[in-house]
């Protein structure tokens, strides 16, 4: 089955510590992957996409096809990074494109 796996439900770190949110995928085609974020009382929004290879709010994510992973990293966590993070895969099937989400990881950054 084609899917997205986020193994950690919760990740708790202290301010200034490095953060790595894990995402693994299972997909037979060429993957397009995304990270979405939902801050408290805000709507779900796009954080970054692997195609753009950019850093947003200090976060980066590298697609590793050998390990089928797309982990989200930040060298120094800030309290304002506390949020729910969802990894998403754009499945291509029969001419349609289906955005498929993982279950999410809750990141808590302590002061």
């Amino acid at each position: 089955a084609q899917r997205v796996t986020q193994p950690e439900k919760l990740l708790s770190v202290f301010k200034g510590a490095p953060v790595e949110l894990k995402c693994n995928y299972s997909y037979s085609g060429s993957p397009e992957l995304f990270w979405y974020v939902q801050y408290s009382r805000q709507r779900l929004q796009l954080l970054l996409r692997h195609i753009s290879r950019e850093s947003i709010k200090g976060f980066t994510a590298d697609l590793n096809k050998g390990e089928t992973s797309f982990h989200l990293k930040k060298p120094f966590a800030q309290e304002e990074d506390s949020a729910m993070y969802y990894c998403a895969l754009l499945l291509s099937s029969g001419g349609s494109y289906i955005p498929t989400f993982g279950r999410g990881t809750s990141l808590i950054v302590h002061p």
Partner: protein
Amino acid sequence: EAGVAQSPRYKIIEKRQSVAFWCNPISGHATLYWYQQILGQGPKLLIQFQNNGVVDDSQLPKDRFSAERLKGVDSTLKIQPAKLEDSAVYLCASSREYSTGELFFGEGSRLTVL
């Protein structure tokens, strides 16, 4: 630009009753999605529209759920009759085209079925 609008924000109903949710996507966005998010899980796609045509509805429980997007703009998702397991947040999202994974989400409609 105005974001994706959804209503109602909250709804509480008894099981076997019916409920409808409304979504107005961002102007000019051709693709509209309805996701179901049960507590502790990620969003699960129910149905995807491209303009007013259905692209994918493979995970929509068609015996009780229905959705339409008349005129390719607003959309309505209906549940009739509701079950306890339908308690969830119903998220509407839109995107400029169907081949992009860049979705813009609404605030969601939280349904509680008693």
